[in-house]
């Protein structure tokens, strides 16, 4: 891999986030987007070392220390790509450097499948509203009634039931 620009210094976003530490993972709730994310240990360690001062090589060094295993820059870059994708890094308008992209497949080719640490994973869900949890079959529909999403009328245009 060509040398990445060392001036990229990511900063973990903290505002409008609720963070819940679990044994080996971190749950993050994004209050602006109503999304929840689960960071595995590798992703969580990389995120925690994004303090706006550490560049890629420093984050890699600190991640290796925290995980007590050798971590490559490619793995850290993969983590940063995912963190950026899920809006967990501060967006810096003045930053001259954009984050290079690397795919999971490329990382696996380079570090090998049998790596000492798990590749970073950020799992994400959209948190539904309370009404989305309600039973659909409460409301008649078709004539004079409508269904709340995600329910739909079983007989559009005619009397029916929300399903």
């Amino acid at each position, binding site marked *: 891999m060509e040398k990445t620009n060392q001036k990229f210094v990511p900063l973990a976003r903290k505002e409008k986030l*609720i963070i*819940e530490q*679990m*044994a*080996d*993972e*971190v*749950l993050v*709730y994004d*209050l602006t987007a*109503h999304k*929840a994310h*689960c*960071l*595995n240990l590798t992703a969580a360690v990389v995120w925690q070392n994004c303090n706006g001062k550490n560049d890629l090589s420093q984050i890699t060094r600190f991640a290796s220390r925290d995980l007590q295993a050798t971590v490559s820059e490619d793995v850290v870059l993969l983590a940063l790509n995912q963190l950026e994708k899920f809006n967990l890094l501060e967006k810096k308008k003045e930053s001259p450097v954009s984050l290079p992209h690397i795919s999971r497949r490329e990382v696996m080719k380079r570090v090998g499948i049998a790596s000492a640490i798990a590749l970073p994973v950020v*799992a994400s*869900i959209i*948190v*539904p*509203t*309370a*009404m*989305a*949890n*309600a*039973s*659909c*079959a*409460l*409301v*008649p529909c078709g004539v*004079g*009634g409508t269904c709340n999403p995600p*329910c739909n009328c*079983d007989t559009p245009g005619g009397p029916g*039931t*929300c*399903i």
Partner: protein
Amino acid sequence: MSKVDRLGWTDGLAFKCQGVTVGVRTNNPKVLKRVKKVLPLESTLIDSPVVDHLFSLFIGVDAPPPNFRRHHLLYNGSVRLIRTMKDDELFDTLESMLRLRVAEFTKRRVFIHAGVVAWKGKAIVIPGSSHSGKTTLVTELIKAGATYYSDEYAVLDKNGLTYPYPKTLSIRENGNSRQTEYAVEKFGAKAGKKPLPIALVVVTDYKRNGLWRPRVLTEGRGALEMLVHVVSARRQPKFALSTLNQVASRATVLKSKRGEAKQTAQAILQMLS
């Protein structure tokens, strides 16, 4: 004053449940007796002119010209929830919405849309949205000897214990979207009474010819699967996450498609045995 306030309300009641106050007003005082029957579990009537949430129940009356009948209407605030001629649909909707509002706004408990049974002193929670087959699975579990806790909500406290939330089982039969209510005693089952720790969370939904091949989720992924079904997740995300952390750190969380409920229920109970 909104339009709904001008509909001519003559009586009402207020109750408190899990710290949430709710009022129901109506144009026909005679229906309040039936309203009291559909109040959520552990509700206590209160004497308060001010409530957190207000439902307005307009009972349609027969009026001239001949054969003209006004619809029944139900509002939550100024939002109309239902317009129907059928009494049962009106009160079914009211009952569900009262439960939903309490579940969404309480700060004392986390309500997860889930079925819950107990087996050997521990709870099994089956999160799922409507039509995922959780009531069918709950029914098979109680037929196999599990104790019934709920087929609608898992009610959790901050320590991750789950409380009974029993109601009649709402079963869809023969592919119908409407449900039929059954008492659990019909299946020879008992309803649980005390809070229990959760041993197993089963994230599943029915798929025709589906194979039961559960995989164990990590604590974080398990908590995420449950969060999707937490009613108050958007209102109180911090409380929801910390409670789910308690659950996920102690329970095993499984995920799999399933086929017929009977076989799946037996497999689940065998795991805990």
